[in-house]
């Protein structure tokens, strides 16, 4: 057989396979290294610090776990959160992440490696990303082959869509959850392929780990049953499916109920009922199959059919009935918000207020996935070509995850693995076709036809030309695209010559190279900011660190009594608890909407209304984030409308959103701001003495690009306690009631008035006397 380039012929197959497996191991370890290394930008550019908001709680909980042991952690009641309610942490947390760090911590200390718990928390996500790459390799290997697996591992290792949630310091549930997701899916595919209860059990155990780690486990809970159901409907029921699904479902469901936060949900909420339904259906189908194997009379099959349909209908009716009577909880609001993107804004503003729950903007698909996003459909089509049971899984996963990623930015994370898998399948099919050296015998006749078109339009050639003897799926596409006429000798389509191959392969490698550049750029610029520490550039190009958050939290820690209650918007609750170690009213757990609405009401009403609320909740300090001086756009004035909306949800008579807009419907903070806006506690605290900073000049808010009034707001019920270097964090102390029983406003006026009015009334009085 002629080849396009010389191949060594004196190698034994054993040598080839040994070398290949050695290369695979080397490649996988390099991929793991790259995955870990590219996540270290955050540590190198800033420092080894916990990022953002939720990770601070996880870190705090992990410290408790490491210091006091697992039982203390399990029974931990935190009186400082949600003051005065407190929070049962052990029962309202997914403990998988903390337990993982705790195990690593104990293990390292058992080896006499005294590693600080913070460093374990910071490095956990990069470490697990290496495991994710490996799990993706295993998963993709089941779809196509090892080379596709390696490509998928490389893709998931550096793709920004996954890095965004797993840089060093981003100590969140997702850090370990994506590994668990991929590995559970791998075990499921393996169990289905082999019909092995071992892999079914493994899938269940990793499912349990996933349930303990992340609320997104519901995705697995519905993906696997959906796959099973589709297979049954496609007439692909096998005993292997029965073995795999039954062993996974029974053990997985029972184990998921061990997590206190999940509790009895797997048998009582609608989200989990699909899995139960498919389980029941499988039992019926299996029973039917068994009976059919013993008897094959027509009459009996009819009977079975009736039996199966009746049972199915009865099951459906029972489900609806139980939902109505209340034994099964109906779908939750979070679930509805996945289907109706406007639902959350109307009914649960607290969910809609989180920026990562917004619908995804189109550019972020390219930002997060780069060229994978257009290889992805090609990979899905290639899955359709083979359509074994596991390819059905990838197709369903692709469809579901694409939809969810479009609805919520945060769910981009679940789309990323399947995009990597599908693109790797497509990409490695392309490479398989073009790297393969084999050429058909009669190269002379058709080489003129194939070669020029390929060199002109490489992409077109990739779709149309294909080597017939590679057994690749591109052959099928080519065959489908150019149907051969009857009677005529089928014309062989193939790739001839080195130039064709080089054109395509260079192109492909060019795409890969750009991908690597893009990933590095996106990671270092967009996804590595801790958001606790901000960075800006000096005039000479050097980096300037803005450390206002830690400055303020440290001030609280050093200058206030340990019992001082701090009120802030819920975004900062975990950070205050983690860094300042002070009780907070609300935090990022957001379990109690009314409590949050109370804080929202206090922030958005006038001082006179807010003061009793503050006093009733024992608030000593109020903390606001203000970016107007620096141009930090994530500040409280920009979040203010959400506070108003959430408060309005509970007190519609007292707080109305339209009051905070100008009559023209604009959101302004300058002279034209509405009275409700100007009197609100939030506005006053943000702009208190702000104009003095400009020494009589025009005081400009750099976030909203508006000039604030020259005469700033006055505060009667609060005292400014601390303002950080760049004014990002401002802390106010709540005044105690006046000693003489006056309300603070008149007391204040009296204190001020005494100085100003002393001369005139006194003289008048003298005149009278």
């Amino acid at each position, binding site marked *: 057989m002629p080849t396009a380039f010389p191949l060594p012929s004196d190698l034994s197959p054993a040598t080839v396979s040994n070398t290949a497996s050695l290369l695979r191991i080397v490649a996988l370890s390099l991929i793991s290294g790259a995955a870990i290394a590219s996540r270290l930008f955050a540590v190198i550019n800033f420092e080894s610090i916990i990022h953002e908001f939720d990770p601070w709680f996880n870190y705090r909980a992990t410290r408790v776990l490491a210091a006091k042991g697992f039982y203390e952690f399990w029974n931990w009641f935190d009186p400082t959160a949600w003051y005065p309610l407190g929070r049962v942490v052990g029962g309202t947390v997914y403990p998988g992440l903390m337990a993982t760090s705790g195990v690593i911590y104990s293990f390292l200390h058992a080896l006499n490696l005294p590693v600080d718990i913070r460093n374990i928390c910071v490095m956990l996500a990069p470490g697990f990303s290496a495991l994710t790459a490996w799990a993706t390799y295993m998963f993709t290997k089941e779809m196509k082959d090892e080379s596709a697996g390696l490509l998928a591992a490389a893709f998931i290792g550096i793709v920004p869509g996954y890095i965004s949630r797993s840089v060093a310091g981003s100590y969140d549930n997702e850090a370990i959850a994506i590994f668990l997701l991929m590995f559970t899916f791998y075990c499921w595919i393996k169990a289905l392929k*082999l*019909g*092995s*209860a*071992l892999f*079914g*059990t493994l899938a*269940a*155990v990793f499912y349990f780990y996933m349930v303990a780690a992340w609320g997104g486990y519901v995705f697995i809970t519905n993906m696997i049953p959906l796959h099973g159901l589709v297979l049954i409907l496609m007439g692909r029921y*096998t*005993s*292997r499916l*029965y*073995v795999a699904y*039954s*062993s996974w*479902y*029974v*053990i997985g*469901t*029972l*184990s998921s*109920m*061990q997590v206190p936060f999940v509790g*009895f949900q797997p*048998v009582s909420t609608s989200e989990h009922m699909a899995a139960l339904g498919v389980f029941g259906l499988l*039992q019926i189908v*299996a*029973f039917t199959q*068994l*009976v059919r*194997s*013993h*008897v094959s*009379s027509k*009459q*009996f099959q009819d*009977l*079975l059919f*009736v*039996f199966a349909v*009746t049972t199915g209908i009865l099951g459906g009716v029972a489900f609806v009935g139980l939902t109505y009577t209340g034994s099964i909880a109906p779908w939750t609001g979070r679930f509805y918000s996945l289907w109706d993107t406007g639902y959350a804004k109307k009914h649960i503003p607290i969910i809609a207020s989180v920026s990562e729950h917004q619908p995804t903007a189109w550019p972020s698909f390219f930002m997060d996935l780069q060229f994978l996003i257009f290889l992805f459909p090609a990979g899905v089509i290639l899955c359709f070509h083979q359509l074994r049971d596991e390819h059905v899984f990838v197709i369903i996963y692709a469809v579901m995850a694409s939809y969810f990623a479009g609805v919520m930015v945060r769910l981009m994370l679940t789309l990323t693995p399947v995009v990597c898998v599908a693109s790797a399948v497509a990409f490695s099919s392309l490479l398989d076709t073009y790297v393969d050296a084999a050429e058909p015998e009669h190269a002379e006749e058709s080489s003129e036809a194939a070669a020029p078109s390929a060199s002109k339009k490489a992409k077109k050639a990739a779709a149309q030309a294909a080597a017939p003897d590679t057994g690749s799926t591109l052959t099928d596409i080519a065959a489908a695209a150019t149907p051969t006429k009857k009677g005529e000798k089928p014309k062989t389509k193939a790739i001839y010559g080195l130039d064709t191959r080089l054109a395509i392969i260079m192109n492909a490698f060019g795409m890969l190279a750009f991908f690597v550049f893009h990933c590095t750029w996106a990671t270092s610029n967009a996804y590595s900011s801790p958001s606790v520490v901000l960075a800006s550039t000096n005039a000479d190009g050097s980096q300037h660190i803005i450390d206002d958050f830690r400055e303020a939290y440290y001030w609280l820690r050093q200058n206030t009594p340990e019992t001082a209650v701090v009120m802030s918007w819920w975004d900062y609750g975990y950070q205050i608890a983690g860094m300042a170690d002070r009780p907070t009213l609300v935090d990022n757990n957001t379990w109690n909407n009314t409590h949050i609405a109370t804080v929202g009401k206090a922030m958005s009403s006038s001082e006179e209304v807010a003061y009793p609320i503050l006093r009733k909740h024992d608030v000593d300090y109020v903390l606001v984030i203000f970016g107007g001086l620096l141009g930090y756009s994530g500040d409280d004035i920009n979040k203010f409308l959400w506070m108003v909306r959430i408060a309005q949800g509970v007190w519609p008579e007292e707080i109305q959103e339209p009051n905070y807009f100008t009559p023209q419907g604009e959101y302004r903070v300058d002279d034209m701001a509405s009275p409700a806006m100007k009197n609100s506690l939030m506005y006053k605290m943000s702009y208190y003495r702000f104009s003095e900073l400009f020494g009589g000049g025009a005081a400009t808010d750099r976030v909203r690009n508006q000039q604030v009034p020259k005469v700033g707001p006055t505060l009667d019920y609060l005292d400014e306690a601390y303002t950080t270097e760049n004014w990002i964090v401002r802390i106010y102390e709540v005044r105690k009631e006046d000693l003489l029983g006056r309300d603070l406003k008149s007391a204040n006026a009296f204190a001020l008035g005494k100085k100003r009015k002393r001369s005139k009334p006194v003289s008048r009085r003298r005149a009278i006397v």
Partner: protein
Amino acid sequence: MPPKPAPATPVSTSAVQTLWRAYNDNTSDRLKFVDSFLVFLMLSGVIQFAYCVLVTTFPYNAFLSGFSSTVGQFVLTASLRSQVNPENKNEFKDVSPERAFADFALGSIVLHFFVFNFLG
């Protein structure tokens, strides 16, 4: 698996009898032994469920763990049965009967670990 009482229609009696006869003739003793265990598990599950519906669900976790132990053991045993059934040899190329039993044992141990943990 023994025949479930199918919906009572006139045709069913003879059909069930045919089925019973075919089952008795075609099934090896080993599988019949497994089937008898399955029947036992099913009866145990039915009794527990009846107790839960008729009397009380009070220690709900205890009921759930007991019931899942029977259901789980049932499906694991049914899996074992289909894996060792000579008729299914083509489907389970990689699972020998010994391997199937090892899988069954491991699955049962994991299952009962969680059952025990959940009993409360």
